[in-house]
């Protein structure tokens, strides 16, 4: 008998099922993995940003207590360098990727030069101090623009002027220049987007274990993409058959992009374990190593030329960007400033003439790759600054400039002219209007005017940011065309055991996003089984189908859809079985409330648990039907999804000191359909906070010779509890037609929207003094200096 309707879970703020282990200290992160015989690897790193390694003497270190081995680049020169799996499309890329340990030359401070393996981690650090390296220091260069100038130090022979690639999109530059020249209002500006450190609170780590009996390797790693790490390690670095490697991501303590990439230590700990006859070898980086060497994000320096009419309509936009990629190319570094940035610079606006040119550049810094919002953060910052510059130049209110230039609901699907996939749907003005209403925009503008009139010390600033982003990556065919060297679909297997319990395996995996909860909600509703009966398995290449992992806000839109489709297949099979058992025509069977029955007769129906049992034992199956209820889906989305919204930030800036205080933050987001509002809001809070951090606090600083001056959490400021206000969130819901869930994705939206909202607010606060742009982070001194220069 099929019972009455169980409570629907999708759309409800269900408490996370992940949390009990995490609030009791029972989570198992990489540093918590305990293996018998564990040995510890520590890394000797270059103190120079650019140098030739003349000699390394490790004899003293080898004699230290507990030392099991010391290895240098020379010892592993037969091992391939790390691969670069996403080059800027359609142009030549001068590829230089790091070796596991530097051979001959180092190109950044922190470049791994040698490793020691010891019994205890304390001994490892002791032994490092006993290795002598003789370096010949070479001239170094910091700053992407500077690195391309004549006479700048050269990092790699194959990359003259340190240029990795030159790439552009949109119309011809000449055509756009002509449109600019013909525009009533013209604005030129240099806009920066400083280099950031992702700073997941858990640093990176890896443990490698070789099994001499089977010749198999197991890698535990802080990973956002275990299958990809296996593929790259096996086929591109170690040359080990892919099936001989298993990669496991234990609980992962945040990633924000930085744990997507293949790093030197991952293949190295496997190789070292093999050298040690199978003793597991562990690497867990210090925070300072994380800052120096785990991939950074952003790092743009752009020239922008804007044309507009006197009433604020944008007529032309040309952006030329230098993108720092660091000393080598990280795993997908060139794809971020090209596909993910260049093609999204138009934002939510119709711009008739647009050209974006990117120069990817090597400099002697940490590698730069995707970091939360990757490319689209830089694009939204660029275009939202552009819109405010137009407002500033024309005297038209920033909200009105946005309205005037928005893509309209009837324009979808919309091609922004930059060669990317068309925006699916949206109502940008609706989100803007709601945000203005929530914040009380007109009153704030009045108050701002009054304060300016009175010469108040606390100046009020209101910053708008209307954004659209492209996520849910991505259609494989399109990504292949864009230079991505693999597919980008996602996988899911849904299996109902004989006992009626459901196991979902997915190629998506969490590092804080709550996949186990969200996916269980989805399956519970679609299958009509209790939430508690569902287990979501992930993060282990053994037992999950190949998957591309979690980044680009793709887990629900792509991974969730794969699950949804697998459930549909299971349900379909269950209905066929029910038709057989109930001796009814398949077309008369409905599936509802956790069971299948003949239309109108739920009391004589079969529950999914009964059907699973019947399917499993296989005593009475229709002809040709295989036993068990199980289905696998490899879902390749037809397009990106395009979340959008408007965020508004209100700040007070102290005229005497340049201090900024964020007073209010209002966000209206449209992420399409929401499975778990608790989790969606949490993603937005975190994203907004990271973006706020970029606007006000964060930024890597390198000295001229390439030493990092912000090498610890004592110097590099991420947002603390006291620095953020309570955010005021609302949603509009415009389901996407790209996937059957109608979900657009939410992992990056907050970070994409908030940086320009906060920066625009600070600049707005001082705009009456003649200031129209400042570089981030907007530290008190920067703001103070701008004010001093303009009064």
């Amino acid at each position: 008998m099929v019972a009455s309707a169980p409570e629907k879970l999708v759309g409800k703020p269900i408490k996370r099922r992940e949390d009990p282990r995490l609030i009791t200290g029972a989570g198992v992160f990489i540093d918590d993995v305990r293996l018998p015989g564990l040995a510890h690897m520590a890394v000797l790193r270059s103190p120079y940003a650019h140098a030739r390694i003349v000699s390394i003497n490790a004899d003293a270190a080898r004699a230290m207590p507990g030392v099991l081995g010391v290895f240098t680049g020379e010892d592993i020169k037969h091992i391939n360098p790390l691969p670069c799996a996403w080059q800027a499309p359609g142009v030549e890329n001068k590829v230089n990727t790091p070796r596991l340990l530097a051979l001959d030359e180092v190109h950044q401070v922190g470049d791994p030069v040698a490793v020691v393996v010891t019994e205890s981690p304390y001994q490892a650090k002791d032994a490092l101090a006993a290795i002598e390296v003789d370096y010949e220091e070479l001239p170094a260069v910091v700053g992407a623009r500077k690195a391309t100038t004549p006479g700048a130090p050269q990092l790699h022979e194959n990359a003259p002027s340190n240029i990795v690639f030159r790439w552009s999109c949109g119309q011809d530059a000449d055509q756009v220049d002509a449109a600019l020249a013909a525009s009533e209002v013209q604005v030129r500006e240099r806009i920066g987007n400083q280099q950031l450190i992702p700073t997941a609170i858990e640093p990176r780590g890896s443990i490698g274990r070789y099994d001499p009996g089977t010749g198999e390797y197991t890698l535990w790693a802080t990973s956002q993409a275990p299958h990809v790490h296996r593929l790259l390690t096996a086929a591109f670095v170690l040359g080990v058959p892919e099936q001989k490697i298993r990669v496991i991501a234990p609980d992962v303590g945040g990633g924000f992009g930085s744990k997507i990439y293949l790093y030197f230590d991952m293949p190295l700990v496997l190789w070292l374990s093999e050298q040690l006859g199978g003793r597991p070898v562990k690497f867990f980086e210090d925070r300072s190593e994380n800052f120096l060497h785990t991939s950074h994000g952003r790092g743009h320096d752009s020239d922008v030329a804007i044309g507009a009419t006197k009433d604020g309509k944008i007529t032309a936009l040309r952006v030329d960007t230098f993108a720092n990629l660091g000393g080598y190319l990280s795993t997908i570094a060139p794809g971020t400033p090209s596909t993910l940035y260049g093609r999204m610079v138009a934002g939510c606006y119709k711009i008739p003439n647009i050209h974006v040119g990117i120069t990817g550049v090597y400099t002697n810094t940490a590698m730069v790759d995707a970091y939360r919002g990757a490319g689209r953060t830089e694009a939204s910052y660029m275009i939202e600054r552009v819109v405010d510059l137009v407002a500033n130049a024309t005297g038209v209110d920033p909200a009105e400039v946005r309205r005037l230039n928005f893509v309209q609901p009837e324009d979808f699907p919309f091609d922004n002219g930059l060669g990317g996939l068309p925006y699916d749907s949206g109502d940008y003005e609706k989100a803007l209007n709601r945000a203005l209403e929530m914040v009380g925009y007109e009153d704030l503008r009045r108050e701002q005017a009054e304060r300016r009139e009175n010469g108040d010390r606390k100046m009020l600033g209101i910053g708008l940011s209307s954004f659209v982003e492209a996520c849910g990556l991505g259609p494989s065919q399109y990504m292949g065309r864009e230079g991505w060297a693999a597919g980008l679909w996602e996988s899911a297997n849904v299996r109902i055991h004989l006992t009626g319990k459901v196991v979902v395996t997915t190629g998506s995996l969490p590092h804080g996003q709550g996949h186990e909860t969200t996916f269980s909600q989805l399956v519970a509703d679609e299958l009509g089984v209790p939430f508690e009966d569902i287990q979501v398995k992930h993060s282990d290449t053994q037992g999950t189908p190949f998957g591309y992992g979690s980044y680009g806000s793709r887990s629900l839109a792509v991974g969730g859809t794969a699950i949804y489709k697998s459930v549909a297949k299971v349900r379909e099979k269950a209905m066929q079985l029910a038709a057989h058992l109930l001796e009814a025509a398949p077309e008369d069977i409905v599936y509802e409330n956790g069971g299948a029955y003949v239309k109108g007769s739920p009391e004589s129906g079969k529950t999914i648990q009964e059907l699973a049992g019947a399917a499993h034992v296989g005593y009475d199956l229709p002809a040709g039907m295989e036993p068990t209820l199980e289905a696998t889906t490899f879902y390749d989305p037809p397009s990106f999804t395009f979340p959008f919204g408007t965020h508004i930030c209100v700040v007070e800036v102290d005229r005497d000191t340049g201090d900024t205080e964020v007073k209010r933050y209002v966000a209206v987001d449209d992420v399409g359909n929401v499975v778990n509002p608790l989790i969606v809001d949490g993603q937005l809070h975190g994203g907004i906070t990271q973006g706020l951090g970029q606007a006000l606090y964060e930024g890597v600083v390198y000295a001229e010779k390439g030493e990092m001056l912000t090498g610890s959490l004592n110097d590099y400021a991420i947002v603390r509890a006291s620095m953020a206000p309570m955010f005021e969130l609302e949603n509009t819901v415009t389901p996407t037609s790209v996937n059957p869930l109608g979900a657009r994705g939410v992992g990056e939206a907050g970070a994409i929207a908030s940086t320009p909202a906060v920066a625009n607010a600070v600049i707005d606060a001082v705009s009456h003094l003649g200031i129209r742009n400042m570089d981030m982070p907007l530290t008190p001194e920067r703001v103070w200096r701008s004010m001093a220069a303009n009064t």
Partner: protein
Amino acid sequence: MAEAVATRIPVKMTVNGTEYAAEVEPRLLLVHFLRDNLGLTGTHIGCDTSQCGACVVYLNGESIKSCTVLAVQADGGEVMTIEGLAKDGEYDPVQQGFWEMHGLQCGYCTPGMIMSTHSLLKRNPNPSETEIRHALEGNLCRCTGYQNIVKAVQYAAEQMSGGSAPTS
């Protein structure tokens, strides 16, 4: 190079109600003693400079950063870690608050965050939002933006004070 055979020093401490004795190098940090000697891996390490607070535990009734205390300094002391917070299978109200209010995402900072919160509420059972944020200055979270952490603390304060509404 100095002779590398370290002097080991006997230490005794009570951790989560159980007495432990060991001989340790003076340089052994308390966080490593807890994690590696006692296997209490709920206390995490997230930085080198005493900023992140992932390692916060109680030592003699005060919340401290166990990465900045030597095991020998805790000799004779009483330590409580995240593993010792739940009593008889019942979550502490602070743990419950973090769960109810979605005060965690990746969970790495969470044990330290919970211990700091616990210590705050012991000193100030009814903190304002400003006091909560101030009390969490030593705990960094990169996922939540702190909003739901503040709500979790308020939830716990309310539970612990028997349901009266906390000020905000």
